[in-house]
């Protein structure tokens, strides 16, 4: 399987958060504070990780469950890219 580009992963995550978590209610930017705004919580993050596992094929380890990794769409994208690289490297 070809590894998706960073932009593709960003778009996948952004679309999921916008469509499923926020139910299309409002727009979010690449640097919107998702934890501070309460967009991501213990339930929505687990759902997001399940989505990433199914769509990108990467499991995010528990050790990576830190605020810095989930603050924004940018940081989540970086986490997925790093995990993918580690997994296939």
């Amino acid at each position, binding site marked *: 399987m070809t590894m998706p580009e960073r932009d593709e992963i960003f778009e996948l995550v952004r679309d999921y958060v916008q469509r499923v978590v926020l139910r299309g209610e409002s727009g979010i930017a690449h640097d919107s504070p998702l*934890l*501070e705004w309460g967009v991501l919580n*213990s339930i929505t993050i687990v*759902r997001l990780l399940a989505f990433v596992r199914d769509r990108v094929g990467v499991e995010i380890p528990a050790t990576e*469950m*830190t*605020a810095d990794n*989930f603050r924004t769409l940018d940081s989540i994208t970086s986490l997925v890219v790093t995990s993918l690289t580690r997994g296939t490297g």
Partner: protein
Amino acid sequence: MDFGWSEGQRHAFEELLAAIGSWQDDRSVADSESDLRAARHDLASWGLLGLSVPERYGGGGLDVRDTALRVQAFGDACTDMGLVFATAAHLFACAMPIAEFGTEEARERFLPSLCSGALVAGNAMTESGAGSDLSKLGTRAVAVDGGYLLSGEKSFVTNGPIADLLVTYAQTDPTAGYLGITAFVVETRTPGIHLGPPMDKMGLDSASAGIVAFGDCFVPSDQVLGAIGQGTEVFNRSMRWERTCLFAGYVGSMDRLLRRTVEHAQTRSQFGRPIGDFQAVAHRIAEMKSRLEAARLLLYRACWAIDVGEHPDQHIALAKLAVSEAAVANALDAVAVFGAWGYLSDHGIEVAVRDATAGRIFSGTSDVQKLIIARELGL
């Protein structure tokens, strides 16, 4: 999956059953109202305070399945479910987070004493404004030289009124939601801690629970559990233990209640024959057995999933939901079979209803378990 017990498991189960049964028969009325602190040395002698703690810290080093079987024996032999609950909170919500996430210094300092009963531990997570929603914790931990200052108030702290040690959780980064929570182990002799008196509650009488207030209470850095911001993960792991192994105690108590109910249906006669001859009574007892065995299988399945490293969340939620709901339903059915005697306090049947009701609430309510199951189904 192998559903059979090994010879060693069978032997350990029966040995524990006999030891606790004999101990309980010797307890006086006054003893039966005592708490974990009073019983701790007996519990430690059977290994119950450290079942799953690694052996090098004085524990039994058991996996989840073997731990659950021991707690099942405890719940079967001991009619005091408050004591079973208090012991399980001490072990699964306090000792295990230290064992799994503590610094080496904290493990060496606290775990041997928790396993021996020299220290009693309380679980201080819940707050009046934050039950299932951990992101709403009001307790704060501010970094200072050498550690953190804790401020805030915890509620429903199991073993709180009698605790020497607390595992607690506080916000270290209010901008990070549930990933801004950090776990700490705190000694209750630390200046700034106030332990409230036991709360009056419906059941689990000998398990004390109360308020704990922190007022600029200093906790050294080596008493942080896990990484900063990893508190929710620490708590979730402790809930894995509670939702499986603590609830194994309820499976044991349901076994005991079913045996008593069958015996009563065989010996109580009405209209010239044992009431168990009446289909209405027999069917009620058959339903009790069906609920119990379904719950038991789900519980063993969840324990097995954890031990083999399978993604266990759905199995754990199914098990916790099934055991806690079965415990309430079976207790109500037992009262119905016993009739007026079931309603009298000194017959030991109505207490099962009061003790089981708590099981639908603590360690994540039944509604939260359904939410987890639905989430795992993709809803």
